[in-house]
């Protein structure tokens, strides 16, 4: 109890936004799984950003005399694939692709979803139309929808981004709409209306900042799904085309060599698994850390 009081006093003393962020960060750091997730994500970003530095050789360079080398053989950290390409260098560049695709498609999906959700939640007249369209999108299995869009646009990584962005919109729209519906009935929104604030001001200055928490959590979780789907689509041959070093495509390429060189598929497989795991646990951690009801139990 005494520590609780001291903690809340600490919170009271904080006078700016940065201090509030510190509280959230502190709470995440207490969640061990989330910390592991953050470390993995951090490593991933380092790999992606410094790919040209970290690579041991050109990821596209073939050397048939050195094909299918195992882990650590002849100085290749993670071995080589069936064309003798260095798997480590390809993994590092693959991280780049996964993160870029993940971040762009999640951002595009969020912008669309947040706008639609805000409009649907705030304006009753638009609600019916927008949410029926969203329901329609929901009715398709996600990967099928993505495949449909790629079938129409053609196979390329850019089209994968477009497909996955569209697929991210409905979930986000629904979450935002739900928050808006509850927030717009709050008395502080009524007070702003009583003061004569315009709808735009109320929507973007008062409602939007109050539904960021679920959106941040959704975005993090969505990163995991997106990276997984990109790999899945590439595995199916709809995304990145060979010889692009994309993780899903690498698993697909390794399939035929499962017996002679299993590490060709297993290494990218582990990378995908760890990445998805990391984003999921960080998402979970964020959800707990951003929960305003946690305020009092904080010590």
């Amino acid at each position, binding site marked *: 109890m005494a520590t609780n009081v001291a903690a809340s006093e600490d919170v009271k003393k904080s*006078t700016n936004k940065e201090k509030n962020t510190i509280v959230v960060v502190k709470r995440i750091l207490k969640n061990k799984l989330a910390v592991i997730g953050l470390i993995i994500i951090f490593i991933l970003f380092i790999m992606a950003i410094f790919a040209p530095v970290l690579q041991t050789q050109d990821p596209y360079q073939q050397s048939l005399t050195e094909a299918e080398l195992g882990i650590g053989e002849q100085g290749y950290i993670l071995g080589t694939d069936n064309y003798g390409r260095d798997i480590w260098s390809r993994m590092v560049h693959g991280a780049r692709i996964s993160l870029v695709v993940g971040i762009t498609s999640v951002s595009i999906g969020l912008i669309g979803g947040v706008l639609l959700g805000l409009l649907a939640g705030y304006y009753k007249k638009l609600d019916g139309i927008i949410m029926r369209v969203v329901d329609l999108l929901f009715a398709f299995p996600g990967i099928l929808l993505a495949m449909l869009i790629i079938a129409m646009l053609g196979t390329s990584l850019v089209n994968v981004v477009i497909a996955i962005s569209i697929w991210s919109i409905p979930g986000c729209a629904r979450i935002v709409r739900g928050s808006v519906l509850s927030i717009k009935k709050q008395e502080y929104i*009524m007070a702003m209306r*009583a*003061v*004569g*604030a315009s709808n735009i001001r109320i929507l973007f200055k*008062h409602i939007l900042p109050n539904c960021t928490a679920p959106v941040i959590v959704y975005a993090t979780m969505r990163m995991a799904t997106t990276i997984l789907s990109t790999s899945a689509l590439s595995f199916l041959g709809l995304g990145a085309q060979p010889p692009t070093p994309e993780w899903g495509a690498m698993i697909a390429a390794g399939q035929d060599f499962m017996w002679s060189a299993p590490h060709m598929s297993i290494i990218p497989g582990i990378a995908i698994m760890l990445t998805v795991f990391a984003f999921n646990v960080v998402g979970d951690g964020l959800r707990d850390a951003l929960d305003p009801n946690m305020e009092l139990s904080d010590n």
Partner: protein
Amino acid sequence: MTNQQSLLEVNELKKYFPIKKGILQRTKGYVKAVKNVTLQVSEGETLGIVGESGCGKSTFGRTVIGLEKKTDGDIKFQGENIGDLSDRELKKYKKDMQIIFQDPFASLNPRQRIGDGLEEVLKIHTTLSKAEREQKVNELLKEVGLKEEYKDRYPHQFSGGQRQRIGIARAIALNPSLIICDEAVSALDVSVQAQIIKLLKDLQTTHDLTYLFISHDLGVVRHVSDRVMVMYLGTSAELGSSDQIYSNPLHPYTKALLSAIPRPIPGVKKERVRLEGDIPSASEYPSGCPFHTRCPIAKAHCKESIPEWREIEEGHFVACHEV
């Protein structure tokens, strides 16, 4: 009626909420939240509105300041008919009418520093420069008894009473003439209640404010109000000066309400008027006098005809056949 200038006049105000059912969302009836309210508020006075939960007090207040669109009736503010104005036309009147809400924990944006919140109000309605606005925010905070340096804090760093003070600061920021206190002190504990009421009274004299004080707490209403209106199921049952209502209640509902106030004097037996049953649903509105279903003195004709709003004595109105 009164010789003072009237600030707000409400005539037979109605606010019905449609009940929509089915796939096509057809209207299958109405919740008659405010069925028939007529009143007149003079400049500088405090008019208390009492009634039990669900009688339409809050809806009435919100309709008056334009948060809800009225269904029928007139709302005249400063002599101007504001009931039919669009939101844009209403904006200039919004400066003059403000509202203080019940829940101090829900009435402030949790992600906005309170100083920014107050400044925003000024930004919307005035052309003051940033420095002038900041100056004004400081003055407002001082006026409601808060320190200047609190303006960089977020609402969750304040207690209930302090938050209510911030709500009051927001309401008086634009120098309004009418403030609707919608259960403004009901969520606070008694000692804080007293402080907030004192603050409201002080501000009334310094700012020439008129209050519409909505509450279910008869004791508080008596303490703050010059006149009191008793509402039952969306209609006005009785209206009179505080003294008239509290010492000479005429409507059987007012009598029942007053007899329910707990009295701290032991040994003094007071006859308790007990009401049978619950308040009827506002969606299945009773015929005739809305109170006839629970009225201890109801006669046959109460069921059929709606009682007139009659002035029994100077400034004392009642809607009852049997008075």
